[in-house]
């Protein structure tokens, strides 16, 4: 960071100190006086959707926010791979300098011990099953699409570190990009049933909190995930509706995006062959 040496660095430091003081003092002022606002209403209504309140917040009340945030991860993967060399474009009609690309990493896996060689692959496979378990439990217990994607891609990374180029978890290029496309596209299209039925994009027709859809749709999308909630206030029958499906799409998208980043950074990118 050449730019931050000398006078500029001092100015930046002073600005940082002023910002920090301002921020800390305002946080101190807000302590104990944070206004609950709309979140009280959200909390009061939460039991109507998923048993896990967090899942309701992220995928139902603010479900469309999460779609665009998921797209941030997708774009992150896309741009990172672009920088490595996937999809670099040049003008046909004029000569430019040749694009910057990065070479694949060099692996040295000869030094792998016997224990790692035998236990590495079961560990990676069990990590994948763990990721799948996490995504299926999204609406009842902690977990969800983001976490699942991160766990699965860490299994991929683990296998890549242990086995190098002969990665036993062999996500191909088209598989990774395809799964990302299915993930984000699927999430986006899960809004369509609600849009067609009520006019509101991504209305959760499975949970149908505001009774806007015919009961047949409510049954199709809601019943597969219906659970009985035995609480001290009584027994409730609640279904998260499309929330579990959204989580699976989310997981696919994260696997696609982070997997693409890992793939491109580890093995480089060449446009030839699969």
């Amino acid at each position: 960071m050449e730019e931050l040496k000398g006078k500029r660095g001092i100015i930046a430091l002073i600005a940082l100190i002023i910002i920090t003081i301002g921020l800390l003092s305002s946080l101190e002022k807000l302590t104990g006086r944070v206004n609950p606002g709309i979140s009280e209403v959200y909390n009061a209504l939460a039991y109507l959707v998923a048993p896990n309140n967090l899942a309701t917040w992220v995928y139902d009340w603010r479900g469309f926010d999460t779609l665009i945030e998921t797209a941030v991860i997708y774009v992150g993967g896309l741009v990172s791979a672009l920088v490595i060399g996937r999809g670099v474009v040049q003008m046909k009609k004029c000569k430019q300098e040749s694009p910057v690309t990065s070479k694949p990493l060099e692996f040295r896996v000869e030094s792998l011990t016997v224990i790692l060689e035998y236990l590495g692959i079961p560990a990676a496979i069990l990590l994948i099953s763990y990721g799948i378990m996490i995504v299926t439990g999204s609406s009842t217990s902690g977990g969800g699409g983001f976490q699942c994607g991160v766990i699965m891609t860490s299994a991929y990374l683990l296998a890549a570190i242990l086995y190098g180029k002969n990665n036993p978890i062999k996500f191909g290029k088209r598989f990774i990009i395809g799964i990302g496309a299915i993930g984000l596209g699927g999430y986006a299209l899960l809004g369509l049933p609600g849009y067609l039925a009520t006019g509101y994009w991504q209305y959760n027709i499975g949970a149908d909190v505001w009774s806007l859809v015919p009961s047949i749709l409510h049954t199709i999308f809601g019943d597969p995930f219906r659970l009985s909630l035995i609480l001290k206030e009584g027994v409730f029958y609640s279904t998260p509706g499309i929330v579990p499906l959204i989580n699976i799409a989310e997981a696919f998208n994260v696997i696609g995006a982070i997997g693409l980043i890992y793939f491109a950074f580890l093995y480089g990118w060449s446009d030839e062959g699969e």
Partner: protein
Amino acid sequence: MMLGEITPSLIAFILGIIFGTQLNYKLTKGMIILLISFSIVASLLFGVFTFTYSIYGGYIAPGIGFSMPLITATIGIIIGKLLKR
């Protein structure tokens, strides 16, 4: 018993098959037994999902419960791998 207790295990099975087809490793019989037994132990450690009250959901007795999706996902991965061959 509600459908919501079975569906996660089914989904886990299908996802397992999808990702199992991407494995590029020769699974021996010993490895399959190792994987399944490990997954059963792990599912016992993780316990059941909240609000599942049946043997399908994994709840067997107070304090004992299996996280069924973990087991079905592992089985799915193995089957997916065998399908690919």
